[in-house]
C-alpha cells in the first residue's frame, strides 16, 4: 500500500511540471504583451524609456524559456514570484485562499448533507412527494446558471429585503465576527450549494436505487433484518462509495468554479483574484492560481485512488 501511495505521489510531480509548462507557454503564446496591461497606452506613449526600463526590470525581454525556468526555480525555493504590479504572490495567496476555502468548504458541507440526504430519502420513497420535489429541484438547480442564482439572491435578500450585504467578506462595523461571517457567507454559500445539491441529490438517489435493487439487499430483507438497518447498514454504506468520489472531485471545481460567484459577490477569494489577473494579463498570478487548482485536482484524484485502493485491493494490484 505504501508503495502504491508513493508511486501516486511521485507521479504528481511531473504532472504538475507539465501543467505549469503548458499553462506558462499557453499564456505567453497569446501574444498579449503584459506591459500593455500594467501600463496604459497613453503612459507608454508619453513615457517610453521608463516603460522599457520597467519591462527590463520585470525580465520580460528574456527568452520565454529563460523566464519559465527562472519562475520555476523560484517556486522550488518557495518563492512564488511577484504579480506584475509587484505584490508577492505568496502574500496574495495567503490572504485569498482561506477566504475561498471557507466559502467552498461550507458549500461542500451543506451540499453534501442536503444533497445526499434528499437523494437517499428520494430513493427510499421513490415516486413519493419528496422524490418528485427533489427531482424537479435537481433539474432546476442544474439548469439555472449559478451567476443568475447569485444575482437573484442579491436582488431579493440584499437589495429588496436588506437582510444580507451584497459584497465583500468583512464589514468594517462588525462587532461580532461570527455574525459578520454568517451575514457575508450566507448568500454566496447558498448559491454554490444550490448548484451542487442538484448534482449530489441526483447521484445519491440513482446509486441508492441501484443498491436497493441489488441481490444482497433482497437477501438482507429476506433474513428479516429491520428495514432501517437494511437502508443504513447495507444500502447507504454501499451507495456512498461512488457519491464520495463525486464529492471529492467537486473540491477542485469548487475552488476553481467559485470564480463567477466571487465576482458576483465581490468576495475576496482566489476566484476573483484569478479573474482580475486574467483581465489584466497578470500571467504570474494566473499561472499560480491555475496551478493551485490543478494541484487540488491532483490531490483529490490521489485521495480518491487511495480511498478506492483501501476498499478494493484489486486497484492496488492494478496500479
Amino acid at each position, binding site marked *: 500500500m505504501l508503495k502504491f501511495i508513493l508511486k501516486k505521489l511521485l507521479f504528481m510531480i511531473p504532472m504538475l511540471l507539465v501543467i505549469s509548462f503548458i499553462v506558462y507557454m499557453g499564456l505567453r503564446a497569446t501574444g498579449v504583451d503584459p506591459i500593455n496591461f500594467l501600463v496604459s497606452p497613453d503612459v507608454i*506613449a*508619453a513615457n517610453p524609456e521608463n516603460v522599457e526600463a520597467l519591462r527590463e526590470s520585470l525580465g520580460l525581454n528574456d527568452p520565454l524559456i529563460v523566464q519559465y525556468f527562472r519562475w520555476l526555480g523560484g517556486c522550488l525555493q518557495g518563492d512564488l514570484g511577484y504579480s506584475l504590479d509587484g505584490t508577492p504572490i505568496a502574500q496574495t495567496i495567503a490572504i485569498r485562499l482561506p477566504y475561498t476555502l471557507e466559502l467552498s468548504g461550507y458549500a461542500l458541507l451543506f451540499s453534501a448533507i442536503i444533497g445526499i440526504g434528499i437523494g437517499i430519502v428520494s430513493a427510499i420513497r421513490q415516486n413519493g412527494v419528496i422524490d418528485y420535489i427533489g427531482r424537479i429541484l435537481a433539474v432546476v438547480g442544474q439548469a439555472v446558471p449559478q451567476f443568475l442564482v447569485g444575482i437573484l439572491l442579491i436582488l431579493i435578500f440584499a437589495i429588496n429585503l436588506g437582510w444580507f450585504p451584497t459584497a465583500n467578506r468583512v464589514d468594517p462595523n462588525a462587532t461580532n465576527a461570527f455574525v459578520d461571517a454568517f451575514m457575508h457567507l450566507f448568500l454566496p454559500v447558498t448559491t454554490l450549494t444550490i448548484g451542487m445539491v442538484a448534482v449530489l441529490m441526483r447521484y445519491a438517489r440513482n446509486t441508492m436505487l441501484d443498491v436497493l435493487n441489488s441481490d444482497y439487499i433482497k437477501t438482507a430483507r429476506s433474513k428479516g433484518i429491520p428495514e432501517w438497518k437494511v437502508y443504513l447498514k447495507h444500502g447507504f454504506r454501499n451507495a456512498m462509495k461512488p457519491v464520495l468520489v463525486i464529492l471529492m472531485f467537486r473540491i477542485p471545481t469548487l475552488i476553481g468554479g467559485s470564480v463567477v460567484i466571487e465576482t458576483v459577490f465581490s468576495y475576496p477569494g482566489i476566484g476573483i483574484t484569478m479573474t482580475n489577473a486574467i483581465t489584466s494579463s497578470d500571467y504570474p498570478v494566473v499561472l499560480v492560481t491555475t496551478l493551485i487548482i490543478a494541484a487540488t485536482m491532483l490531490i483529490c484524484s490521489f485521495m480518491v485512488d487511495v480511498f478506492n485502493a483501501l476498499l478494493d485491493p484489486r486497484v492496488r494490484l492494478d496500479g
Partner: protein
Amino acid sequence: MKKKLLRTIALALSVSMLAVILAACGGGGGSTPTGSPAGGEGTPAASGDGILKLAVTTGDGSSTDDKIPTPWYNRTFATNLMFRSLLLADSTLTKTSPDLATCEVSEDALTYTITMKDGLKWSDGEPLTADDVVWSIETAQKAAQVNPNYATAFSYISSLTADGNVITMVLNSPYSAMMDVLAQFAILPKHCLENADPLTMESDPFWTQPVTSGMYTVDTLNVGNYFTMKVNENYEGTAPKIKSIQVSFVTDYVTAAKAGNADYVYGNDTNLVDALNGMDNYTGYQIDQLFYKYFIFNMKGVDGKENEAMQNVEVRKALMEAIDRASLAALYPSASVLNGGVPNTDDAYNGFEWKFDLEQAKADLAASGYDMSRPLRICYYNNDQTSVDLINAVVYYLEQLGLTVEATLSNDGTTDLFTTREYDIGFKGKSAFSMNEWYTEYLSTDGLFCNIYGGDTAFDALVADLMAATDTESRTAALKALQDLEQEKVYKVPMFIVGTYVFVSDNVKLPDGVEFCNPFYSCDLNFANWEVA
C-alpha cells in the same frame, strides 16, 4: 390520486418560482416615496450613521483591492481626500488657487517660483517640505506608471531646486498647462518612499498604510474588503465635518449603490447612468469632460510597414462621411458630436463639419479606386454594451457603402493596430485632461502613435505652439491650425465627447456652490463642509 398530487406540486412550484421572480424584479424606482422602508430602487439608503461610504471598483483593472489607490495615474475621490497638490483646481481644472504652496510665473513663462505654506505636516507628524516636492517631481520623471500629463509637463523642466521653503522650477520652453498639472500632481512623502523603486512605486508596502497630507489618513485596510479613513490630526486646514469614511472594494458600482454602500458614484456608462437616475435617493450631476470617442486609421509604422488600403486620404474621408455621428451620439447619456479635437462650443472651433452623406461617401469611395472586395477590418476594445451597439451600428453604416466589414473585440485597441497591421480602423476612448492631450497623440515622437501614423512630423511644430501658448489668442490660433491639419490628414477622427455623471446619495448634505469636476482628477469640492446624515 397520484396525478392530482403531481399537479398540486407543479402548481406550488410554479407559484413559488413566480414569487421569486416577482420579488427579484420588485421595488421598481419611482413608485415608492423616497425615504420609506422600500424607498424606490435606492433602498436601503447609504450611511445614516455619520459615516461617508465610498466604493472603489476593481472590476475594470484600474485599482486593486490589496492597497490604497495610488494618486499618480488617476485620482479618485478617496485619494483626493488624502493627498494634496501644490495648487488646487476649480471644477474646470483650468483655474488654480494655492493649496500646499503659492506659485508665481515669470513673464517669459519659463520660471516658476513656488513658495510652500508654513506649518505643513504629514499625517505621521513629519514636516512637509520643499524637499518632498522636488523629490516627488524627480521621482515621477523616473516612474513608469504615471499620468502622461505629468510625464509630458515634467519633461519641460530644465532645473528644479529648493532653497528653504522656496522651489524654483525652470523650463526649457513655455508649457501652458503647467499650473493645471501642478494642481493635480500629488506630493508624496520622501521620508517614506525615497528607497522605493520608481518603476514599481505603486506596489510598495507604503500603500497599505500611507502617510498622507490631506484632511484624512488611512485608519485600517482589510485586503479585499475595505479601507477606512479617519481625520488627519496634522492637517492644518479646516477640519472636515465628516469624521469617518468607509471605502469598499466592489466589482460593480450599481450594486454597491443599491445596497447602500456608496454615497458617491460616477460613470458615463449608459446602464449605470440609467440605473442611478432611476433611484430616488441619488442626485445626479452632469459633468462636461473631454472623454473622446474616436476612430483611428492604421496607417504605417516607423518601421516602414504600412497598411496600403488606408493610404489614400479620400478613402478615409469617404468612410467617415458614411457614419451618422448624431444618431450614434444618442447611444450615450450625454454625448456631443465632434468634428475635431476641439468641441464645437469652444471659441477655438474652426467650424468644419463632418457631414453624414451616404451617396456622397459612395461616390467618393468609388472615385478613390478602393478595392470593394477587400473586407474592412475594425478593432475595438471596450466591451460594454453601448460600445458593442455603437460598433454594430458603424458596421451597418459602412456596409451601406457596399463594403464587407469585420469588427473584432481586441485586448488593446492601440497596440493591436501596429502589432499585427491586420486592422484598418481602431475605435478608442480617451479621457483627456485637456485638448493638448488629444493633440500630443499626433507627435512624431509619441511612443505609440508614431507606429500608427508612421512618425509623420507635420503636427510637431503646431503641437509645440499649442504647448507654449500661454495667452488665449495664440492658443486659439494653434488649435485652429491643428484642427485644419487633422481634418486634412484624417489620421484619427473623433465621433463625440461623452459627459460623465456624478451621483450623490441623499444622505450627504452638500454645501452651497459645490461643482463637481472630471472624477479622474482633483478639484475644490469644499469637502470640509460636507455632512452625512
